[in-house]
């Protein structure tokens, strides 16, 4: 039953998964938090999904599937999140002669949609913890990703490593509880 629920949820997510990975994060969050995991776990999950090979929606599906029901659920969630996209591409290829959607018009409306989706994701995932070290990591990542060409991967791994190695020392120095 749980497996079926995971598969159905990720099938639905797959239908609106346009806009290149990050825009879908907010939608996934609304579907899985707090039903299956909490906010903190979700953030870590997204960080892992982004720093491992593969598309973010797919990786998230695999991990949540795995946590909910092992290998079968992981496989089911992974396949179901791409079921609709694959069907859409196959159908469109065969209907291209009959159905004349204007690709540039569609792309413009999808751009509007995906910026709105990312705004929602930012709202849903806005930092709630008052831990200044974690907030500093978020601000640093923003600056790095918005104003340099450095791969965002380094922000993820760097913050993770820094927090793992020096986190307690920094917090002790600042006199806050971790």
């Amino acid at each position, binding site marked *: 039953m749980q497996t079926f629920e995971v598969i159905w949820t990720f099938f639905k997510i797959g239908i609106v998964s346009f806009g290149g990975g990050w825009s879908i994060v907010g939608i996934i969050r609304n579907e899985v938090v707090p039903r299956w995991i909490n906010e*903190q776990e979700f953030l870590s999950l997204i960080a892992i999904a982004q720093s491992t090979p593969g598309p973010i929606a797919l990786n998230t599906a*695999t991990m949540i599937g795995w946590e909910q029901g092992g290998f079968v659920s992981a496989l089911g969630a992974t396949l179901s999140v791409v079921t609709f*996209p694959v069907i859409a*591409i196959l159908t469109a290829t065969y209907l291209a002669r009959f159905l004349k959607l204007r690709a540039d018009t569609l792309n413009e409306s999808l751009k509007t949609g995906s910026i709105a989706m990312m705004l929602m994701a930012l709202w*849903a995932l806005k930092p709630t913890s008052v831990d200044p070290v974690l907030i500093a990591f978020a601000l640093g990542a923003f600056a790095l990703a918005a104003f340099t060409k450095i*791969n965002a991967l380094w922000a993820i791994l760097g*913050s993770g490593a820094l927090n793992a190695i020096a986190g307690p020392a920094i917090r002790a120095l600042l006199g806050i509880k971790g």
Partner: protein
Amino acid sequence: MKGYTRQRWSRQKSGEKKSPDKPRLIDFFVLIVRINSFTLGGGYVIVPVMATSLEKKGWMDESEFYDLFARAQAFPGPMALNSAMLVSLKLFGIKGIPVAFLGVILPPFLALILVSGLIQRYGSLPALRRFLDGAGAVVPGLIAALIWKNSTKRSWNILRVVETAVLALLLILLPSLSLPLLLVAIVILYFIEGLCKPLK
């Protein structure tokens, strides 16, 4: 032996006329698996890697690839998967679809099963906990950066500003309805964009 004759034939042919070589399905599969195993950072990183690798192999020009990529973006689904499937469809016809599909899906699936297993096993270690907390903390920052990048690249007009704001607000206020809301919104946005086109 067969591969050798084939190679010679295509070399002779390309001497006469400069047309891209047609790869064997297995070679294409290996390339897709390799790209999807070692490229970290999602669609925006993987797409340029695909473009250059395909051109380097002589299977598809970069410009042709980016035409397909523009089409791939109009579909839901990961950009890496969509582009790989459209490229494969172009090169091999319908039998290319399962090849591209498996090539994109398999490597991350196996990697994530491994990572999930490791986290399940060692997730209670304090150092790993702190690593995951630190890594997770940057996620809102990265999303904000992407909003920044996409917004500065976008050609805005008043209508698009209003559309984006209204849709974002609706998505925030009605989280349980986000899926149907988006589907309806995309259809409406498509028609509004279409209607406004002749005015510009």
